C-alpha cells in the first residue's frame, strides 16, 4: 500500500519497463539549419499517433524557444509558430536547460507557455524517463 501511495504522490520512473515515449533533444538554433523543423515534424507525427513525446531544448537549441523572433525577415516560413499547437498534439512536456539559457544571457521569456526550466540534474532525470531519445 505504501508504495502505491508514494508512486501517486511522487512519480519517479526509474524502471525500464515504465519508460514511456520519445524524447527529442533540440540542439540547433532555429534559422541557419533545418534541424529544428525536422525535429518538429517528428514530434508532431509521434503526437498525432498518440505516442508520448517530450521536447528538450539544450545548447543553441534554446534559441528556438525565445520570444520575439521573426523568421519572415529571412524569408523563412516561421515553423516556430507551430510550437503553439503542441497542446493539440498532446505534447505537454517541454523542457529547457537552465545552464544553456544562462550561458547565452537569455531570460526565461518564451514564445509558448508551459516551458519548464530545469537544472542539469533535473534535465537529465526528465530525459531518463523516456524509452527512446532522438537528437537534432
Amino acid at each position, binding site marked *: 500500500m505504501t508504495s502505491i501511495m508514494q508512486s501517486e504522490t511522487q512519480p519517479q*520512473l*526509474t*524502471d*525500464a519497463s515504465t*519508460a514511456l515515449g520519445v524524447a527529442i*533533444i533540440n*540542439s540547433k538554433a532555429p534559422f541557419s539549419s533545418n534541424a529544428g523543423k525536422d525535429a518538429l515534424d517528428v514530434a508532431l507525427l509521434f503526437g498525432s499517433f498518440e505516442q508520448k513525446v517530450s521536447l528538450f531544448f*539544450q*545548447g543553441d537549441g534554446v534559441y528556438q524557444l525565445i520570444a520575439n523572433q521573426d523568421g519572415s525577415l529571412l524569408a523563412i516560413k516561421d515553423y516556430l509558430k507551430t510550437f503553439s499547437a503542441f497542446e493539440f498534439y498532446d505534447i505537454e512536456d517541454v523542457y529547457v*536547460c537552465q*545552464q544553456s539559457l544562462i550561458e547565452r544571457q537569455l531570460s526565461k521569456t518564451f514564445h509558448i507557455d508551459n516551458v519548464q526550466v530545469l537544472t*542539469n540534474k533535473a*534535465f*537529465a532525470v526528465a*530525459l*531518463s*524517463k*523516456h*524509452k*527512446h*531519445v532522438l*537528437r537534432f
Partner: protein
Amino acid sequence: MSTLHLVRQSAFSRNDFEQCISVLAEQDSLVLMDDGCYNLKHPLMASLLKKDNNKVSIKVISTHAQARAVEVMAGISQITMADVVELTFNHNKVITWQ
C-alpha cells in the same frame, strides 16, 4: 535507468560532448567514436576523469582511435562495434551526440 551515450564529434570544434557530460548519470556508459575519439585529449575528459565520484564507464572504439593515432590512456576500455551492440541492450536507452 542507464543510458549509453555515443559521442561522435570533437569537443574542440563543437559542444555536443559538453552537453552530453551535463546529463551523465552514474550508471551510464560513454562510447567515443568517429571524431569523438579526439575528446580523449580534451580538457573536458580530463576533468571528467578527475571527478572523485565518477562512476561513468568510458570506452572508445579501438579502430576509430587507432585510425586517428589517438593515444588511449589507461582506464579507458577499448571496444569493438560488436561490443557497442551489446552495450545497446545492456543499457535502457541510447543517445547519440553528433
